[in-house]
């Protein structure tokens, strides 16, 4: 079932949670809503499910406008952030709940529960209570429960937020596999960009109640359309820079930079004297040992397969970069050594 959201706005008291958000999702897509906490992602999900109502705007599910229809009429599977399993019911009764309230025969319920338990790998646990399960198991029960009535749409609110890193990795792969098998249109909310990119076909970046950008993971990374997206995605340096001679200058450093979303060659650089915010990804930098260089290394931190080098430019701006562990660029780079710095790729946004 496709989804169309048009001009959704919502305020809680004086706080604007959603501000004119519009997007479309094709049937069968797996889409991530990505953004910092409190940006309105969960509210979008709840409005689609009918658990909250928008102050203005429209929600269309599969070609029908659903604003004003009750949640139960929308046939939406919802996986809640903290599972929201029925605490006084067994795993079996939790999963069968949707079928049971809709009056499905017991035999059908039992068959469906058995099938779903197998699908989520929890065979044999049907008589447990939720309190007797681990976090990852609860999450699977929540998924099985949401899938049981065969929803046309699956909404997942921070589905992997409350489980530990290893289980999260496994659940992500499992969700992707599940989606590839059943093709139920799915939206999941996350503040973890790695999760969004690893699992989804398309990412909607949401910040402060606004849709910043919609696109494939690659588009979001390679062609950020706003300063927020550029600086939110990946690990970045953000500098206040001044334009001079077609280049952006940060202290002793300079780089070719073009404004905003379009690639460098399409745009004229901003005029001399324009102050810009320069966004540089941690992997779009080169450091090498050079006693006549422009920065001093402060710390070298090993992060598994990568090494993070933190330095200070002459003039005081901190800067950091990441290199593969065995990169030749790291030769001679230790705390205290002077280095040369080159920016290989940067994006600039004029300061407001």
């Amino acid at each position, binding site marked *: 079932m496709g989804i169309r959201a048009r001009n959704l706005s919502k305020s809680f008291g004086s706080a604007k949670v959603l501000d004119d958000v519009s997007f479309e999702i094709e049937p069968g897509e797996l889409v991530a809503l990505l953004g910092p906490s409190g940006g309105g992602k969960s509210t979008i999900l709840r409005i689609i499910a009918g*658990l909250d109502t928008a102050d203005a705007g429209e929600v269309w599910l599969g070609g029908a406008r659903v604003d004003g229809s009750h949640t*139960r009429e929308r046939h939406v599977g*919802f996986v809640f952030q903290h599972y*929201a399993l029925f605490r006084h019911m067994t795993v079996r009764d939790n999963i069968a709940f949707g079928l049971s*309230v809709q009056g499905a025969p017991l035999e059908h319920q039992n068959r469906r529960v058995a099938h779903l338990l197998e699908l989520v790998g929890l065979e044999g646990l049907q008589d447990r209570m939720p309190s007797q399960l681990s976090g990852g198991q609860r999450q699977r029960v929540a998924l099985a429960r*949401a899938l049981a009535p065969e929803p046309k749409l699956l909404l997942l609110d921070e589905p992997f937020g409350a489980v530990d890193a290893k289980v999260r990795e496994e659940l992500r792969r499992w969700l992707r596999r599940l989606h590839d098998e059943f093709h139920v249109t799915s939206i999941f909310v996350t503040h973890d960009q790695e999760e969004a990119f690893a699992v989804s076909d398309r990412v909607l970046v949401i910040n402060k109640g606004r849709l910043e950008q919609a696109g494939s993971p690659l588009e979001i990374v390679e062609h950020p359309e706003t300063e927020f997206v550029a600086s939110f995605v990946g690990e970045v340096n953000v500098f206040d820079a001044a334009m001079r001679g077609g280049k952006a200058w940060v202290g002793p450093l300079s780089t070719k930079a073009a404004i905003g979303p379009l690639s460098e060659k399409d745009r004229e650089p901003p005029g001399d004297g324009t102050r810009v915010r320069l966004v540089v990804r941690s992997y779009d930098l080169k450091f090498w040992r050079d006693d006549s260089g422009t920065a001093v290394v402060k710390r070298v931190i090993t992060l598994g397969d990568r090494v993070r080098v933190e330095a200070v430019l002459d003039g005081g701006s901190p800067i950091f970069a990441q290199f593969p562990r065995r990169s030749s660029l790291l030769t001679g780079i230790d705390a205290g050594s002077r280095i040369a710095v080159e920016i290989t790729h940067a994006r600039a946004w004029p300061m407001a």
Partner: protein
Amino acid sequence: MSEKVLIRPHGGARWAIVAVVVAYVTVVIVVPLFALVATVAGDLRRVLEEILDPGALHALMLSAVVAVIALAVNGVAGVVGALVLVRQRFWGKRALDALIDMPLAVSPVMTGLAFLLLFGRGGWLRPVLDAAKLEVMFAFPGLVVATLFVTLPFTIREVALVLDEIGTSEEDAAATLGATSWQAFRLVTLPNIRHGLELGTTLTVARALGEFGAVLVIGGAISGKTQTATTFIHTAIDERRDATAYGIALILAAAAAALLVVLQRRPRKGT
């Protein structure tokens, strides 16, 4: 939270503290109850004869009926009230919230007087009651109204506490799974608030059976009509029918003990 300081008294001090607590509870609770039981046991035949007296039986029956009505009405009102108080936002909510505890704070005698001003001779509601030919003062409805007032807070408070803790996400989940509001309430909310509801209604029954001041002022303890178990004891003592008073008091104490057993058998929080 501030740092926890553990005091671990040793040897004699520890025994002394335990002994003081046990002695205090014994003097305040056990001794009076024992005196009651011993007195009744010492004169069992006369006590039995006295409490089989129609006036005494009527008083006991009346107390039981009023308690059951309070249980039913304030049980339902408590659940609905708690749902409104916890889940709805409206103007004056804080004031209402504070008001609900009023019956716990004011003296029941004052409550009785307030109702007297409403229902008594020349009372504010008198014209309405007269038109409806309804007698409240010194009549059964008066006992019910007074008991509902004094037992109002228990169920609301206990259920609200649980509702506040469990939040609404399970009900949201039920709605997404196709449940109607009534199904969500019956299958999800009600089982979740069950323990709070049990505790609240148990306290309601205990309080209803024990109420004295308000039912005395409103009901007037008319024998065979508005005399409840507690007001019966009061009258019996006045009339120096000690054996009767002891007998009824023992029955009330037994009822209270039974309610305590119900409370103790509840699973502890966190299950």
